[in-house]
């Protein structure tokens, strides 16, 4: 990693030289970016990572003789990535405002503002019209910060309070999918991204009044001024010889670039001390984390019980369909089982949530998000339960059916009184496995931005720049499963009165 190389070089006095120097260092420069953030950094149609910021980084590396590594990251984990040295910097339309103390910043190179995008047909023409609407932002984004952060203006806080709901999604693509499907009424985002999205999609408008203005810089690990200075030097060189503006033109961002030599670098970048709350989590932090996670835990527990409530009986119906004498029904059910067992649950959740709009053109409401989670989980788990029931039913001896037939039981009585109790005993170990998996699978609801425990853990981890919430969440899942295991062991014991 570059940091170690730099530590060796730190003693060198030539470091702060004003004369541009081309270093022929044999090293890599790893840029962390959110791969769903066009035009700054994203995956293009040919599958390459491209963007304004990546082009700038490429040019810097060319001039420095470094090898550029483009590392897409989960935006919520950006601080962990940086702290662990997995990336050397965050260079990705990264807003300085409100984060001055958290990173060592380059001078700002893009002036960005937070704006609101709505559908043309929405009738919303100013932020004031957003009262009572559902507004969506990217988790831990500048827009979220501008609306709810510590430094948010009173005006923005009041605006945010007027929303019916402020929902958070993982990336801008999801935000626009939500806007498209009607699950949200407006998206707040960076103006550069907004202009790009509105141009490449149809039927959207950027509201003329921005909700805030802000600047982008390259963020380095707090204290890593050596690397920052090198990168900045190269940027100034590029500005002098026109390369910088060429790249900006290429991405149609020339109107918002603001790179200036001698511009004031972000506030406290000379302060090499780490912020005090990074000294380690305090008891207060832990209480805060637990309180936040407990809120998510309620949602996770809700997913868990509702899924069992619906999937356990549905699975039985599916199992009957699977064993039906009717060839058509049997094969339809078999196809259903094979699809739901053969594709990722995460994909199924996305299809259930976005499908109604994209397939049938039905606009969905915000409350549909939770329903989609339950529908997706129920359909998936019913498929697994059905196969467990089927094996459980088939493991009951043929002689038991014949004995019931001789004694005159009807087929319904035979199933309820004779087969079902034996089936239940047979399948408890398999059902236990599925239920334990379900406890952990509830975390997949994050795929459609449902605020269950893991989604919140990631958000808190990002906001507090600590990995602790993830461990606490892990502990909660573990405890949850210990309870599940104990309950299932109890049921198994209850069923051990016969063999």
């Amino acid at each position: 990693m570059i940091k170690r190389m730099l530590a060796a070089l730190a003693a060198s006095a030539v470091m702060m030289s004003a004369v541009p120097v081309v270093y022929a260092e044999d090293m890599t420069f790893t840029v962390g970016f959110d791969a769903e953030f066009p035009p700054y950094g994203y995956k293009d149609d040919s599958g390459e990572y491209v963007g304004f910021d990546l082009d700038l980084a490429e040019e810097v590396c060319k001039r420095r003789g470094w090898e550029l590594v483009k590392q897409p990251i989960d935006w919520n984990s950006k601080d962990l990535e940086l702290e662990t040295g997995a990336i050397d910097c965050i260079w990705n339309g990264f807003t300085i405002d409100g984060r001055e103390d958290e990173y060592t910043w380059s001078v700002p190179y893009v002036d960005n503002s937070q704006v609101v995008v709505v559908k043309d047909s929405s009738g919303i023409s100013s932020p004031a019209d957003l009262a009572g609407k559902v507004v969506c932002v990217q988790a831990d984004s500048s827009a979220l910060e501008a609306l709810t952060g510590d430094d948010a203006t009173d005006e923005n806080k009041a605006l945010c309070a007027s929303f019916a709901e402020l929902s958070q999604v993982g990336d801008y693509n999801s935000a626009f999918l939500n806007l498209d499907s009607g699950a949200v009424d407006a998206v707040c985002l960076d103006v550069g991204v907004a202009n790009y999205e509105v141009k490449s999609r149809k039927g959207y408008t950027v509201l003329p009044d921005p909700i805030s203005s802000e600047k982008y810089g390259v963020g380095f690990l707090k204290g890593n001024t050596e690397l920052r200075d090198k990168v900045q030097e190269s940027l100034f060189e590029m500005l002098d010889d026109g390369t910088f503006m060429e790249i900006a033109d290429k991405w149609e961002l020339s109107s918002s670039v603001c790179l200036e030599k001698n511009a004031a670098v972000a506030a406290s970048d000379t302060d090499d001390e780490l912020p005090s709350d990074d000294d380690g989590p305090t008891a207060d932090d832990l209480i805060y984390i637990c309180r936040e996670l407990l809120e998510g835990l309620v949602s996770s527990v809700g997913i868990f019980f509702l899924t069992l409530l619906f999937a356990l009986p549905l699975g039985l119906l599916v199992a009957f369909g699977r064993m039906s004498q009717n060839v058509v029904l049997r094969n339809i059910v078999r196809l259903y089982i094979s699809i739901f067992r053969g594709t990722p649950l995460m994909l199924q959740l996305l299809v259930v949530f976005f499908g109604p709009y994209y397939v049938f053109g039905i606009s969905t409401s915000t409350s549909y998000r939770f329903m989609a989670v339950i529908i997706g989980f129920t359909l998936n788990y019913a498929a697994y339960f059905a196969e467990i029931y089927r094996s459980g039913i088939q493991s009951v001896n043929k002689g038991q059916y014949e004995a019931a037939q001789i004694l005159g039981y009807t087929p319904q009585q035979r199933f309820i009184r004779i087969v079902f109790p034996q089936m239940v005993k047979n399948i408890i170990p398999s059902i236990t496995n599925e239920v334990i998996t379900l406890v952990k699978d509830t975390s997949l609801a994050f795929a459609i931005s449902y605020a269950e425990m893991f989604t919140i853990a990631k958000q808190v981890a990002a906001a507090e720049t600590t990995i602790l919430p993830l461990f606490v969440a892990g502990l909660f899942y573990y405890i949850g499963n210990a309870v599940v295991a104990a309950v299932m062991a109890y049921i198994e014991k209850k069923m051990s009165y016969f063999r």
Partner: protein
Amino acid sequence: MSLLEVKNVKKSFDGNEVLKDISMTVEKGEVISILGPSGSGKTTFLRCMTMLETVDSGEIAYSGEKAVTTVDGKAVYASKADMRRIKTYFGLVFQSFELFPHFSVMGNITDAPIHVMKRPRDEVEKEARELLKKLGLSERADHYPYQLSGGQKQRVAIARALAMDPQMIFFDEPTSALDPELTAEILKVLRELAAEKMTMVIVTHEIAFARAVSDRVIFMDGGVIIEQGSPADVIDHPSNERTRAFLKKMSE
């Protein structure tokens, strides 16, 4: 009228004819043993008479009520409602007993009378206790099948069949799942039932058992009845060569 009348029953599995035109009547109070080597078709015959298997053609009637008739060479079964009634005329004790593992001994005996015959629980349980007493199982009413010995399981299976108050009971190989010393025990139970004029049809390949228990012996082989009559005639003085060969083989 005969309790059971079987006429010209035929049954094939995948083109392999297992029952070739079999006829038999059972009169009230008779104890009949069906003897024969394995593969002779005796078990299939029992399964056809108890409706666990459908016949290809022929006639089966219980107390004159026709369960199966043959129209244009094809077997036609009675309506569902008629079949439900006809099936109450007989009981069956399975070779492997097939007790319900999740019911206690009492549950095994009373569940069908309560839920199928819709009889009051008190009355059914009272009768069940008497049956258990008669079969020497009074101590076992609350046990589960897995806690019972083979002989006990078989007596519970017999009690379960008797609790449905059938006119006749079929037994499928009643001695084969038991230790040899328990044969005397089951023989005692069947003799007690015979003394009470219970009609019984017993499929077995144990010659001594058949001779000891039955009024009439039917010897089957190759899907047909070879010979029938009193145990003294069929077993001690067989007229047919195949019967003699089987008896000789079994006594070796």
